[in-house]
């Protein structure tokens, strides 16, 4: 077995040194009935060639996004990732190390985390950010729980524009904490709807911009209204690139900003692993979940970085911790940081403009087709369309014509008035030919 260095001679010598006759003697504490003599009923070891062959064959049964015109977003976005990003994150020193508990020999990870935290704070317009969460949806749930901790209230209101998976993860996780989670019915352009459910007992309202239908909203009036009632505004985004072009939630009064960072540096990978971004105001720092990296000095006075404020965390505070989470999304946050460093502000802005431009061109091309209505009055790089067909059927018919044309809203939340709505996304990866191919296919599908 190529991954196991011990030889039979080693094993015999080691058993002798331990002072036992056989490996079985090391398992004497296991109840005899549970000791299995034989192998479990699974295939035997295979070489690299055989394993790779199996996976290649299985992967061949998937249609890779890049293999045809591709327009699916809805919380996961296909962007170009510079080649150096993947090269750097595969360096042994980043890939095969642990959480930086020994800062003297983990400054690489720690400095990169400090850069990540600063980038996220700048991007969202907030004071501080943590060292990342599992993904955007779990960050959203943790934000709700944090708001309850800060306000000592237990009710949160979710807008109808919040990604349904984020809403469900929050209902499950915050609900387990004993919180009451009010999820409003889907609405294409009405994040301020949360204010209708607002009262003096609300811990937070959670809104999304751009929302799941792509619509961009001014959060300032919502922030003012919820603050007047003593609650917090939690602002969510699923497309990090949008912050290169639109006003960040921090500049519009948000108290906690959470989102998905996958767009920067991380592949689609069928939904994970991704990287949750979590930022807040300085005054709320100690109520944050997750790991935090801070600057300090070493015994010689040299600048260095350490994990800090760890008394909030489960390994010290146990049942009183701010969260049960242990790992962050280290390597994905590194990919984010490297890609963001390659972009810089100018590159990010240009990337965001390209995305917006492609989406505008796509919206124009699709809305020109008879029977297609673009529902999103404003948008960044994705928007909702409505046709006479159920969303799932439309997408299936487009797929049959070689176009992956979007995500049916009904797949995220079935049984609403939006069964005929499809969420469509364009990024810098889409060419003019892609857009023309989509328009052609859609025209064929909808032709009487």
């Amino acid at each position, binding site marked *: 077995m190529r991954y196991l260095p011990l030889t039979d001679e080693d094993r015999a010598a080691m058993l002798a040194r331990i002072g036992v006759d056989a490996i079985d003697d090391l398992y004497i504490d296991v109840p005899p009935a*549970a000791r299995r003599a034989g192998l479990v009923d699974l295939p035997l070891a295979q070489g690299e060639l055989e394993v790779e062959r199996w996976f290649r064959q299985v992967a061949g049964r998937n249609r890779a996004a890049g293999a045809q015109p591709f327009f699916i977003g809805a919380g996961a976005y296909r962007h170009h990732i510079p080649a150096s990003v993947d090269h750097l994150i595969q360096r042994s020193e980043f890939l095969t190390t642990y959480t930086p508990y020994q800062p*003297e020999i983990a400054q690489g990870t720690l400095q990169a985390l400090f850069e990540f935290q600063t980038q996220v704070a700048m991007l969202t317009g907030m004071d501080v950010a943590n060292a990342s969460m599992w993904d955007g949806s779990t960050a959203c749930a943790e934000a709700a729980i944090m708001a309850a901790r800060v306000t000592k209230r237990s009710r949160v209101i979710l807008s109808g524009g919040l990604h349904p998976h984020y809403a469900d993860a929050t209902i*499950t996780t915050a609900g387990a904490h004993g919180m009451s989670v009010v999820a409003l019915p889907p609405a294409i352009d009405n994040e301020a709807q949360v204010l209708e459910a607002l009262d003096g007992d609300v811990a937070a309202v959670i809104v999304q911009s751009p929302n799941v239908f792509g619509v961009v909203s001014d959060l300032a009036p919502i922030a003012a209204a919820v603050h007047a009632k003593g609650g917090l505004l939690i602002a969510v985004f699923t497309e990090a690139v949008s912050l290169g072009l639109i006003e960040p939630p921090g500049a519009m009064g948000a108290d906690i900003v959470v989102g998905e960072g996958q767009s920067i540096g991380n592949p689609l990978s069928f939904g994970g692993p991704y990287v949750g971004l979590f930022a807040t105001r300085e005054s709320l720092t100690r109520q944050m979940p997750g790991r935090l990296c801070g600057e300090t000095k070493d015994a010689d006075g040299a600048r260095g970085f350490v994990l800090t404020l760890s008394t909030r965390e489960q390994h010290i505070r146990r049942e009183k911790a701010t969260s049960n989470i242990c790992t962050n999304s280290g390597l994905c946050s590194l990919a984010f940081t490297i890609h963001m460093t390659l972009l810089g502000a100018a590159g990010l802005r240009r990337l965001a403009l390209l995305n917006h431009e492609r989406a505008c061109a796509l919206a124009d091309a699709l809305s020109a087709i008879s029977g297609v209505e673009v529902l999103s009055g404003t948008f960044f790089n994705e928007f909702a369309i409505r046709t006479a067909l159920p969303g799932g059927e439309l997408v299936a018919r487009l797929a049959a014509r070689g176009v992956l044309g979007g995500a049916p809203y009904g797949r995220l939340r079935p049984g609403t008035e939006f069964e005929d709505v499809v969420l469509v996304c364009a990024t810098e990866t889409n060419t003019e030919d892609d857009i023309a191919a989509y328009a052609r296919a859609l025209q064929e599908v909808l032709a009487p």
Partner: protein
Amino acid sequence: MTTPTTSGSRGLLQAEKLIFEIGDSDRSGVDLPAPTPRAHRLGGLARRAPLDLPGLSEPETVRHYVRLSQRNYAIDLGLFPLGSCTMKHNPRLNEKIARLEGLADIHPLAPVSTVQGALAIMETLVHWLTTLTGLPGVALSPKAGAHGELCGMLTIRAALAARGEARARTRVLIPSSAHGTNPATAAACGFSVDEIPADARGRVDVAAFRAKLGADVAAIMLTNPNTCGLFETDIKEIADLLHAAGGYFYCDGANYNALVGRVRPGDLGVDAMHINLHKTFSTPHGGGGPGAGPTVLCAELAAFAPLPFVVREGESLTLVEHREDADQAPFGRLCAFHGQMGMYVRALAHMMSHGADGLRQAGEDAVLNANYLRALLKDHLSAPFGEGPCMHEALFDDAFLEGTGVETIDMAKALIDEGYHPMTMYFPLVAHGAMLIEPTETEPKAELDRFAAALIALTERAKGRDAAFFKAAPERAPLRRLDETGAARKPRLRWRPEGPIAMRTAAE
């Protein structure tokens, strides 16, 4: 140590500032086409807030992060004996496979007819995990070990609710040696935590456990092998007593590496257990994630497993993503999409590479390596909890340092100078000044011998009253000991513009 250099660099170790100090917001390492001017559809919400993110060209970026990387210890560099963390070799085949276009470049909401291969991987992973553990259900979506714990405990809560006992059963029993995530998870599910003491053998005190059982007990959360690296000898009795009292058995599977291929948790009476794919099945730790924590479930609990899951319909596979489409009663959804696909791929590649025979051998070698180190070290350090064999990790306490002026942390820092990542320190709490050593199965005997020699030499030095040497360590690492107290008193959690970028902001 030596005279400072003019550049601040030391040989191969290059001085490196933060990107905010070397980059600027107009520089970029990405060439993008110029957008064509057109009217925005942003509803007047174009960004007005300054965006000062620094950029670097590609060569500068590569150099920056390569330089940072060289300040990290890693499993690829040497033994990483961090107890409870299972730092084993990460096969590069798994990385290669995870990057195949048909796996990395597929969207979670693509029509299921176009991602049958992805669903086949999930189905195959389910088969391997259920076969290995002897438990018939799996929730794949938890994104890490703690998320798997949450999944398991919420499944238990849903099962209790279905029995009409959710309000009655609110207490969760947790041994004092448990990982901090266990009490944190129980609290996150609204349970109260009741601690069970350890006995003199480092195991659950069964008499104390029995006394705590009652009609209000929802579950036990027990790590096995436990955090002292010991198999819970009375585990079957604990399970039987608990089941008779109407509670569920949650097993923290963080230490499953010791048992894989040889002992099935289902045979021990376990009802639910998360599996850290990043431990037992070698997906890379990546400096703190991403992990994955699929949770195996007994038949009774499987009915409440969260959304989504894969089901087979004849020749094709499909995803159940909504309660309406489920035959049973999922408790909800834990996260967006379908969990950590990239980790499923790597873990399955690990399993298929090892096979039934290799996995069993891996578990045995992990146990053998730990016991071998224990045999080499036990006369030099002090081992609590008796003479019996350990499982995959060996626990020592600080009794051997008594009167030397040297503490556990000093031994750890001195090991850094010897070229090793230290063992886990001060955990579990049941051993005073704990040092928990987990070598894993991917260490050759010669590495273990070399590590033991270094550690033994340090123990001799400590006993020779050389505390000053230890307090000064590390002296050969990129940095000396860091001021963690100062960091926590005045937290500086981000870089603040004080230099050129700040000036540029003011000019805008």
